[in-house]
């Protein structure tokens, strides 16, 4: 028995036990938000099996547990990137300019549902939804207005877009061209992650197989033409929002990442060329240490996977760089100002976890899209952490904490277990395992069960949500609510009609025919999509061709 073990035994007997007998404790069992049991206290014995040099090490070096850059935020702070968009391109352009003036350092585009689903504003399915949860985009014309006065060689722009991701990337390239910025220089991210749509977020248009094919087309085209652009943002965020645990978020995101890498390698894409253009996107929820552990574990796992499993040679390919958004699902409609505090805790976890960029939610988002005031507080939250808290002044300050190191290792182990199960489903292939898991409802069922468990804990009062099931008050809602102009739909449809009347319809037809033939003959669809976009073909027309060739997808109902 080591001295530590002896000391612990003695402490348990002589100190803890009598104390518990006298004073008791609040819970029988303490656990993280993911249900991992948490002990009273941690000591060196809990991390004995963790080797500092091999498992923790120094930032900027394999396995990158402590961060991808050697000096992290001492060099450059994370990018403060607020997801934002509503109404028409004019409305969003105005909000973006406000955010840039207020010190935001990157743009992030919220599209409305018709755009996300690849239907035009004049489609009957779009009725009532145009410009509601994001900006309405039908053609390149809208993009010209959206980026008016925003030089693409100076900002990086993130696009939360999935089925039409290739179309939006093509539009961005076309705008750069109009601004005289070479496409090799543009920076940004398209989400382009269909796997998590099938698992959780449900922006579903084409079936899984062709969705995957188009994503690999975008990889293949993107590494040649837009080498500074992240071609995918492999997202756990939505998996978590749909109700998963932190462990599931970590495991399924890494599994999806592996599936994409395998799909690219099957196409013959060089992993070391693709890897620097992959990025990740995680949620930051309420359990502070669990989130930090999750981020650290994710980096370590990805480094191992890329180097040891897939044989990437360039150390740069081993990096897991990620965007974080605080947890939308943790926001409460009740006592909305409390959300500022929740968001602060979550944002601190993201920074302590080494995020590359961050979106902080606004306190009013359980009610509507955020007002200007609410967005400003959210951005200020990041700025206070950055400039006042001292947190960014040293790299990975929680390393070495018995609890944080133990929990990082625990998260990793639990995630590996899921990954091995998925690999088994695919007979050794992660790509096939993930596709199989979509087919047989594995992911959806896992997430739904976790969501139900979480809700049950709230219903039973086992999980306290301040202001919701404890510390409630009678209140009148007094916060200002953003109103999207109801005229947006009419104006957007008018603009769409005008564009269609003025464009060269013959050129549009030629481009769309080219796209059809590329899709039918299993060629890369990006060149014809770029051509179609430049002729002002609509998103609905382009997606329409892909739907004709590949068919559409209806998700099986699993409650």
């Amino acid at each position, binding site marked *: 028995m080591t001295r530590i073990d002896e000391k612990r035994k003695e402490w348990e007997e002589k100190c803890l036990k009598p104390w518990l007998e006298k004073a008791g404790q609040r819970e029988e069992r303490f656990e993280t938000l993911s249900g991992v049991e948490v002990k009273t206290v941690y000591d060196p014995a809990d991390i004995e099996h963790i080797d500092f040099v091999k498992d923790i090490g120094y930032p900027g070096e394999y396995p990158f547990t402590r961060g991808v850059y050697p000096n992290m935020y001492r060099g450059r702070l994370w990018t403060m990137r607020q997801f934002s968009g509503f109404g028409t391109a004019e409305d969003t352009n105005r909000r973006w300019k406000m955010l840039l003036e207020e010190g935001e350092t990157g743009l992030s585009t919220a599209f409305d*549902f*018709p755009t*996300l*689903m690849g*239907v035009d504003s004049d489609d009957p*399915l*779009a*009725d*009532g*939804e145009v410009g*509601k*949860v994001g900006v309405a985009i039908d053609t390149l014309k809208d993009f010209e207005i959206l980026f008016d006065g925003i030089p693409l060689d100076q900002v990086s722009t993130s696009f939360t877009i999935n089925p039409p991701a290739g179309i939006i990337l093509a539009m961005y390239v076309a705008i750069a061209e109009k601004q005289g910025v070479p496409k090799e220089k543009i920076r940004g991210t398209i989400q382009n992650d269909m796997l998590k*749509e099938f698992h959780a*977020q*449900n*922006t*579903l248009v084409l079936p899984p197989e062709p969705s995957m094919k188009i994503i690999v087309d975008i990889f293949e085209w993107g590494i040649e033409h837009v080498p500074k652009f992240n071609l995918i943002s492999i997202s756990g965020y939505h998996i978590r*929002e*749909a*109700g998963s645990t932190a462990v599931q978020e970590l495991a399924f995101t890494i599994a999806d990442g592996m599936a994409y890498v395998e799909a690219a390698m099957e196409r013959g894409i060089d992993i070391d060329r693709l890897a620097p253009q992959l990025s990740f996107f995680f949620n930051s929820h309420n359990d502070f240490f669990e989130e930090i552990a999750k981020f650290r574990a994710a980096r370590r796992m990805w480094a191992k996977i890329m180097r040891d499993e897939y044989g990437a040679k360039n150390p740069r390919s081993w990096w897991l760089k990620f965007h974080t958004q605080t947890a939308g*699902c943790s*926001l*409460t*409609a*009740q006592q909305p100002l409390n959300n500022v505090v929740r968001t602060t805790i979550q944002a601190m976890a993201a920074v302590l976890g080494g995020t590359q960029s961050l979106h902080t939610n606004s306190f009013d*988002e*359980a*009610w*509507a*899209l955020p007002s200007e005031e609410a967005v400003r507080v959210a951005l200020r939250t990041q700025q206070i952490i950055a400039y006042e808290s001292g947190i960014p002044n040293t790299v990975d300050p929680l390393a070495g904490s018995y609890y944080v190191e133990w929990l990082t290792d625990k998260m990793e182990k639990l995630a590996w277990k899921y990954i091995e199960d998925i690999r088994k489903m695919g007979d050794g292939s992660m790509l096939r395992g993930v596709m199989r898991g979509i087919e047989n409802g594995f992911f959806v069922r896992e997430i*739904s069960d976790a*969501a*139900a468990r979480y*809700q049950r804990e*709230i*219903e039973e009062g086992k999980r306290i*949500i301040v202001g*919701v*099931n404890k510390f409630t008050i009678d209140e009148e*809602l007094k916060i200002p*609510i953003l109103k*999207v102009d109801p005229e947006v739909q009419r104006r957007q449809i008018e603009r769409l009609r005008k564009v269609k009347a003025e464009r060269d319809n013959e050129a549009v037809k030629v481009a769309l025919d080219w796209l059809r033939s590329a899709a039918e003959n299993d060629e890369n669809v990006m060149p014809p999509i770029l051509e179609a976009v430049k002729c002002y073909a609509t998103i609905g027309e382009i997606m329409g061709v892909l739907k004709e060739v590949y068919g559409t997808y*209806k*998700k099986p*109902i699993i*409650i």
Partner: protein
Amino acid sequence: MEKKIRVLVAKVGLDGHDRGAKVLARFLRDSGFEVIYTGLHRTPQEVAMAAVDEDVDVVGISLHSGAHLALVPKVINYIREYGGNPDEMLILVGGVIPTDDMEKLKEMGVDEVFIPGTPISEIVEFIKTELPRKRMRNESR
């Protein structure tokens, strides 16, 4: 045995946020209701058709898309058009709904709006007390 209350849980429009709808469906089922879930991305016509075909007592519409003022009245109108009687049903809406819009929805024939964070037990209670009350009110008219 008393006839089970039949509830249609519906996602209408393009919005794919189904966590709330699915959790609700599960809990209502566990609370003894008969639950039909429409699945995603239904049009107002499809939801109304399901409500009439399945002869439900309660229609619960979940939206996180901001399109509630456009889509919810359509559902109610189509129910009537397809031969159902929305006055005999409870029409409930849940999701991200600003307070001002709650009143408007109620004027359009919605019986109650539930915001994020509403305990499901509260929804269960509401259905059990309000459904007979609403039908009683209609009979006495």
